[in-house]
């Protein structure tokens, strides 16, 4: 049996998706759609993309089992898909290389991009350097401060970084500014959109460039365990890493697809970016989806400790998966994410991006729920222990400053002395359900 039909017509996912853009951009979107379809049918293009993914990005990246971390997740087996080990440090490069090659194929000489955490901007600046393209990256002024390291990286790579001070000075405003640039320069510029949002064909095209994540993970997990995972966990900002890992599992009905949004200070506080808890259907940045908006349809400000999840809308296919029930979405607060951030660092020696830490917190929550339903933590020698696959979408180098402040390490304290240690208590001794 196959899953629900996601695309009744191109660019539509049930009631979501579409192309809500100024007429001036329609021709460019049609050109892009055509170039993308032609490219994917061209063996030379596909071979070139495969070569770059192998020799430049370093694919396939590993699937790592994390048993010490998993002790805190009810004893389930937890596997991480290591997108953090890609060149540039996150999954973003998968889509960027595809679109950068398309840019060259369309005869355009310049790429522009929006970035929140800076990972997409860094990946775009990298591909631009590799292929000899001019590159301008728009970044909210607030984000340029909290991700200063990535701003420096982009500039080292030769990109121009434009801080955006309008609106809330975060990711959504960077997208507005990139759109304004694009509508003015579209003849020679490709807007290298970094996630599965925006007008058609971006949500489908970006998903397809990232689907390599799920294809590899599925194959690696089958080879390693002989079975499919019980749950796939991913963080969801715009939702590209989640779509990339979810898509190849969409027809495996026994596999739960779980997306974790930025819960910020908690949904009740109003300071969050949980579109499926606090938002409702609307249109933003070219697509119909769930949008955090007020009673007049004005976009609401969002909050997350993670710049990459701090966005008021979400990819339209996620909205479809949510409404159809195929995927489930839940918020993870800043505190929960930072606990998981510390936990993975301390138990496995892997420092995750704060974005990815939301997925890790989700995995801990799910593992504990499964253990609770089974009457207690799973034994390490239990052959039927559930398997949880987590997309470790990025590494935490960029977040060390934020984390040091969060854990009070800036004055030279040991992490051992910090609050985070509490997160490292095994599940048996843990109090309540802080996850």
């Amino acid at each position, binding site marked *: 049996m196959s899953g629900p039909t996601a695309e009744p017509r191109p660019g539509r996912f049930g009631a979501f998706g*579409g*192309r*809500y*853009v*100024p*007429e*001036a*951009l*329609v*021709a*460019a979107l049609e050109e892009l759609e055509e170039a993308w379809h032609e490219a994917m049918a061209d063996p030379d293009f596909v071979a070139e993309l495969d070569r770059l993914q192998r020799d430049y990005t370093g694919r396939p990246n590993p699937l790592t089992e994390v048993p010490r971390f998993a002790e805190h997740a009810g004893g389930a087996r937890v596997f991480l898909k290591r997108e953090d080990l890609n060149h540039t440090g996150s999954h973003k490069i998968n889509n960027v290389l595809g679109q950068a090659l398309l840019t060259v194929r369309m005869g355009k000489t310049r790429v522009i991009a929006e970035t929140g955490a800076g990972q997409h901007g860094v990946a775009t600046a990298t591909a631009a350097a590799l292929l000899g393209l001019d590159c301008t990256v728009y970044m909210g002024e607030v984000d340029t401060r909290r991700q200063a390291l990535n701003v420096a990286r982009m500039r080292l790579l030769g990109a121009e970084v434009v801080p955006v001070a*309008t*609106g809330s000075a975060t990711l*959504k*405003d960077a*997208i*507005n500014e990139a*759109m*304004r640039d694009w*509508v*003015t*320069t*579209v*003849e020679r510029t490709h807007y290298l959109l970094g996630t599965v949002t925006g007008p058609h064909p971006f949500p489908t095209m970006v998903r397809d460039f990232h689907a390599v994540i799920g294809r590899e993970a599925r194959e690696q997990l089958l080879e390693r365990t002989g079975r499919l995972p019980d749950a796939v966990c991913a963080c969801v900002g715009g939702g590209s890493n989640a779509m990339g890992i979810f898509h190849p599992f969409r027809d495996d009905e026994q596999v739960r697809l779980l997306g974790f949004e930025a819960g910020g200070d908690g949904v009740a506080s109003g300071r969050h970016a949980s579109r499926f808890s606090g938002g409702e259907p*609307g*249109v*933003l*940045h*070219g697509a119909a989806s769930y*949008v955090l*908006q007020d*009673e*007049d*349809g*004005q*976009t609401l400000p969002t909050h997350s400790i993670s710049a990459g999840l701090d966005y008021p809308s979400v990819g339209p296919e996620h909205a479809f998966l949510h409404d159809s029930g195929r995927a489930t979405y839940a918020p993870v607060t800043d505190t929960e994410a930072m606990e998981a951030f510390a936990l993975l660092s301390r138990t496995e020696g892997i420092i995750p991006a704060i974005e990815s830490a939301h997925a890790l917190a989700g995995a801990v929550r799910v593992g504990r729920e499964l253990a609770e339903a089974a009457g207690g933590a799973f034994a390490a020698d239990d052959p039927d222990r559930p398997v949880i696959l987590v997309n470790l979408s990025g590494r935490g180098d960029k977040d060390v400053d934020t984390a040091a402040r969060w854990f009070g390490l800036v004055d030279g304290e040991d992490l051992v002395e910090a609050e985070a240690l509490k997160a490292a208590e095994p599940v048996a001794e843990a109090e309540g359900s802080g996850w």
Partner: protein
Amino acid sequence: MSALSEVFDRCRAEGRAALVGYLPAGFPDLETSLAAVRVLAEAGADVVEVGVPYTDPLMDGPVIERAASRALAGGFRLPQVFDLVRAVREAGAVPVVMSYWNPVLHYGPERFAADLAAAGGAGMITPDLVPDEADAWLEAARAHDLDPVFLVAPSSTDARLRSTTQACRGFVYVASTMGVTGTRTTVGGSAATLVERVRAVTDLPLCVGLGVSDGAQAAEVAAFADGVIVGSALVRAVDEDPTLEGLRAVTADLAAGVRR
């Protein structure tokens, strides 16, 4: 015959182009914006576009973007747009609304159309809604005798010029250049070329927007278009002189321009 058709017929009979002026609702505050649209109508605008301030105006340059932010920070609420529509109507010009799609979608397209029609509005311009996605709006507009106005751009293919103008009523908004709203030193030859292309596929009046700021530019555009759309220059005039005398003067200059 719709109010927009009438005003363009009248202008044509007078051998001139229409002046279409844009001001955002609630800028810099509700009272001043009500006074400003009256001044605009009295000083010679034939059609007044009442803009709905929106948090994410991606078709707008810095002048209108900042005005929208200020209106929202000042507490603008969507139903106030209908007060401005009424004020324009009372002052003798034809009111249309210009809005990004999400505020209208959230209000409910049918309800918005009903309230706009009741306030005396003639139609709506939708900068981020192309006819391909506009089924709900086209139906609501038809039900309430409102004219849907869509944009065409220099990048539009001939096929799209045809399909887009077929969905328009009242007039067609011809975006003169590729870019966002804002004043430009020259409006450029691309506008005339585009107008010529659009004339080949429709008999609707063609109004040219993006970049016009003074009477001389208005006269230049009026030579080949049926209407001249001015926005950022008016917003700046309101911003620089809250007594609105500056707005009156700029509008009078533009009104003279379309009659040259």
